[in-house]
Structure formats: C-alpha cells, structure tokens
C-alpha cells in the first residue's frame, strides 16, 4: 500500500499541486489523444470481449437464452419423434423427421432469445444494479456500449446456431442443405435477424421499471411471439388471424427464412402464400431493424434522471 502511487512521497503537496495545475492547463489547450471515432471503435471491440465473457459467466443467460433452443429441440424430438415424419405422401413415405422440421424454428428462437430476451433483461438489470450508472461516469461512448452488446449477441448467436446445426446433423442425423446459395441465404437472414433482435432488445430494456421485474416483463412477450410465429406450433396449422398478427412481428419472418433454408422446397406450399417470400423477409426485418435502432437511440439512458 505504501508505494502504490509513485513519485509523490518526496514531493511537497504544493509543488505537486503546481505541476498538476500546469498539466491541467496544457491538456485544456490541446485535446487529449484517443477520444475520437477510432477510440469509439477500439473500446467497442474491447467491450465485445468483456460482454461475451460476462455472458458465459452468468448462469441465467447461458440457460435461458443459450441452451433453451437445444432443450426445446430435444423435447420436441422426444415427444413427437415416434409419431412419424411430417409432410409425408398419402402412402406414408417421404417427409422429414420431427427434428428436421423443428430445427429452423429453434434457430429462429435462438436468434430472438440471444437478441431480444438476453439484451432486454441484461440491460434492464445493469440499469437496476448500478452498472450503467458507473459506466455513465466514465468516458465510455454509448456507441461503444451498443457495439459491445450487439457484438456479444452476434458472437453468442453464431456460436449457438453453429452448435444447434452441429447437434442436428451429428446427434439427430438431420440432412443439411448442400447448395451454396441456401447457405448464403442463411447467412443474411441470420445476420439481419440477429442484429434486428439485438436492437429490439436494447429498445425493450427501457420497458421494465426495475432490474428485478425485467424477466417478468420480457419473457411473456418473447414467449407469446414464439407461440404465434411458428416456433413451437407448426405455422400452417394456426388460424389465419393469428398468422396475420404474427406477420407484423419479425420472429415469424426469421422462422420462415430459416424454413426456406433448411426445409425441402416442397414445404413452401405450406406457407401462407405458398412461397418462402425472401424479399418480404428482408423488408420486414429491415423495418424492425430501423425501428429498433431509433428506439434504442431515443430511449437509452445511463440512469433514470426522473428518480
């Protein structure tokens, strides 16, 4: 403890004060380095590593957002696997396994959970426990903070999707698409969907009034979306009004995009319009991306100033 702050013991307070005053004056004249756009990017990238490490150290986030789609896929496969394939010909041949049918839905659920549920609960919690207040007192740009959160969602989302696909292939023996263009479609639907989810998560984090109420406010929203958007229930069996309602929200389009990648093209006839509608998927997700971005920017505060 004795020499923690060096170079002060021998100096008198007065001379040190004079030096400090001089250096204060100097720094007031020439702006300090490392406060420009480059530093926003550098700090943003360092936040990605920090946030990702925090994510995997938090049991709640690992269980409820990372592992949840795996658990649901396992349950659906175990529950309905014995009742035969989905989409079989009248003679009972063909079709795809239950696991293969649910894989696209679970990928879409993973995108939504990693973005919306994870960030909305996480940021509301950070607001409640003082993390944001502390960060707000440092020269951290909100942009770097956002970059860290979105980067964390991307890293964990990609990891989750890769693992889901691996489990589907290796453990459940599900055939994966072989055409490169299918994988290209997967890439853009996934990236657009995950980033949209991340912004919507940041925006929704303004909703809970406290960190403790965050899960109670956010999880029902996310859960209802999953039920009406074709994640847990087969979309084509839902009543038309529910399908139309789900079409307003992004999850339906993420799930549809994933079905378009992973299901045989013959399954397109089960969609509402009989086609995968990739341009509409892009349009809906892009609109929600802009909505999420604007809401995030407008609602985000380091602290609630009105309390």
């Amino acid at each position, binding site marked *: 403890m004795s020499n923690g702050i060096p170079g*002060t013991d021998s100096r008198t307070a007065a001379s040190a*004060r004079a030096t400090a005053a001089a250096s*204060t*004056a100097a720094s007031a004249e020439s702006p300090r*380095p490392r406060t420009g756009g480059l530093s926003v990017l550098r700090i943003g990238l360092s936040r990605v590593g*920090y946030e990702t*490490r925090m994510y995997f150290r938090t049991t709640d986030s690992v269980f409820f957002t990372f592992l949840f789609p795996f658990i649901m896929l396992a349950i659906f496969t175990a529950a309905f696997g014995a009742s035969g394939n989905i989409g079989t010909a009248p003679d009972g041949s063909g079709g795809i396994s239950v696991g293969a049918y649910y894989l696209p839905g679970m990928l879409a659920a993973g995108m939504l959970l990693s973005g919306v549920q994870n960030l909305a609960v996480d940021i509301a919690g950070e607001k409640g426990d003082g993390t944001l207040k502390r960060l707000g007192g440092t*020269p951290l740009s909100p942009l770097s903070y956002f970059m860290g959160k979105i980067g964390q969602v991307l890293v964990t989302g990609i990891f989750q999707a890769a693992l889901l696909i691996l489990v589907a292939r290796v453990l459940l023996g599900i055939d994966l698409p072989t055409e490169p263009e299918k994988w290209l479609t997967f890439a853009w639907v996934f990236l657009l969907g995950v980033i949209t989810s991340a912004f919507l998560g940041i925006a929704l984090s303004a909703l809970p009034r406290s960190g403790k109420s965050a899960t109670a406010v956010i999880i029902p929203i996310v859960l209802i979306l999953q039920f009406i958007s074709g994640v847990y229930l087969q979309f084509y069996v839902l009543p038309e009004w529910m399908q139309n309602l789900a079409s307003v929200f992004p999850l339906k389009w993420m799930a549809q995009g994933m079905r378009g990648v992973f299901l045989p093209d013959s399954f397109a006839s089960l969609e509402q319009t009989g086609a995968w509608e990739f341009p509409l998927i892009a349009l809906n997700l892009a609109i929600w991306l802009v909505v999420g971005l604007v809401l995030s920017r407008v609602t985000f505060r380091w602290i609630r100033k009105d309390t």
Partner: protein
Amino acid sequence: MEHSSPVVRVRDLRKSYGNFEAVRGISFDIEAGETFALLGPNGAGKSTAIEILEGYRDRSSGEVSVLGVDPQRGGLAWKSRLGIVLQSTGESGNVTVTEQLTHFAGLYPRPRRVAEVIEAVGLEAKAKTRISKLSGGQRRRVDVALGIIGRPELLFLDEPTTGFDPEARHQFWDLVRRLKAEGTTILLTTHYLDEAAQLGDRAGVINDGLLIDIGAIGEIGGTDARVPLVRWRDASGRLQEKRTQEPARLVAELGAASGGEPADLEVIRPSLEDIYLGLVRGSRPSNDAADSLEDDTEVLA
C-alpha cells in the same frame, strides 16, 4: 488559461423534484488541489448536489462549472478528467478485479497502471478473484480503484469508506493523501466526521437543502463551538458541564473546592463531529455552563 478559476464553481444551485425542493440555493467553490468535504445528514440534498456536479442530474436553476465545463453539457473528454466513486452498487461482478480494472483503464486516455492501482487499494491478494466473491469492504476498494484508474483531475468520493474495517480506513486515508499530494482535487462526502477532519481542507455542511456553514475544517462552526468543555460530577452526584477557555484553571478550582478528585472529571475539546451535530441540529453549543446534562449530551453525543 484558468489559473485563478476554481475547479468546481457552484452558484445558487437549486433542484426540485415536483413540489419538493431538494437543493434550495447553494453556492461554493473548490480550488485546484483542495480536498473539500461535503457533510450533511441523509436526505439533506448532498447526493443530489453531487450528482448534478457529476453530470448525472440536471439542475433546476443556478450556475455550475466543473473543470470549466457545465456538467449538463459535459462530453466524453470532460468525463475522462473525472473520477467518480458512487455510493455502493450491487453489480453482479462476474469479472475478476484485474479484468475489471484493465477494462476500465482502456476507457481512459491516460490511465494509471492496473497493478499499481490494485496495490494502492491493497487488493494484491484478490487480484484474480471475481468481484462477486469479495467482501463488502473489498468491493468498496474496487469501487475506489475504478474511480482513480483514469488518473482523474477531480475525484468524487461519495461515502468511500462505508464497510471498511479501521485498518482499511487508515490505508484509504493514506491513499487519499497521496492522491492529494499528486494534485488531485477531491470532493468527499462522508458520515465519518473524523474522516472529514483527517482528509479535508475545507468543509461545507448541508442541511435541508441549504449550505448552513462552510469554511476551513479548523474553523467550521465558529470559534465558540470549539471552546473546551469540562465535565464532572458534583458532591450531590449530579453531572455538571461548563465551557471555558481556561479548562486547567477550572479543573484546579474544582479540585480545591472538593478537596480531592472530582468524580468523573473530563476535559473535552469538541471534535468536528460534535461541532457538526451542533450545526445540523441548529443549536450551536453555547458558552454557558449547562445545568442539565440532557440538553448537552444530545448535542455532544
């Protein structure tokens, strides 16, 4: 150049929440290199005033300048010159002490070395421990470390030693003295008046949203409040008190009068705490001998 301008300048600061006026017009300056202690009971408006200076809250009216900048317009470059130790927070703490400090060091343009700061707050043995596994006092030291990692020109310390054991408190005082010797300007709030007396150059006392006194630590409360107090038990067993500038003479007289040792004899020089309590209760200790103990023990408790 702003040689003569104070680091903190507050003029007629007011802050209302709805109909409630938490800060009702306070003014003070803090000069470069000075340690200023802001004292006052809970709910007096202290935290509101400090959070306005830190840029967390907007004021209702008045003028505020911190390091030459209006905190309501303070940008990132301004924040990089501040160090803020908030009252304790409840963060999840899923990172180690070193990880947390390394990350925060990266946010500042001219940070101190992480190992140096860990040593300065006495957490070498816990450097690789997750913050969530630390005791309350150790977590508080991490808060202090995070406040100084950016080499601040102005350091806000809001009740920094809450939860410290006596040894940790003395180590912390040494740390603050070294920061002070480096020229750091410090705004301190504390409920430990001995801490304010040890560290502060000047103090302001806030009560009910108003600054009721301000001055050098050795002068606050005025000279009357510093008159030594002699306390003894008289022949009838009643506790007596008398304020006097000549306590030795009074003690000698008492000894002569009683023909022996007066029972429970004490000579008390009012501590900052006594003076502070006198100020906050709006009743400065008077010069007259107190007839009844009850009144004065309340003031001097």
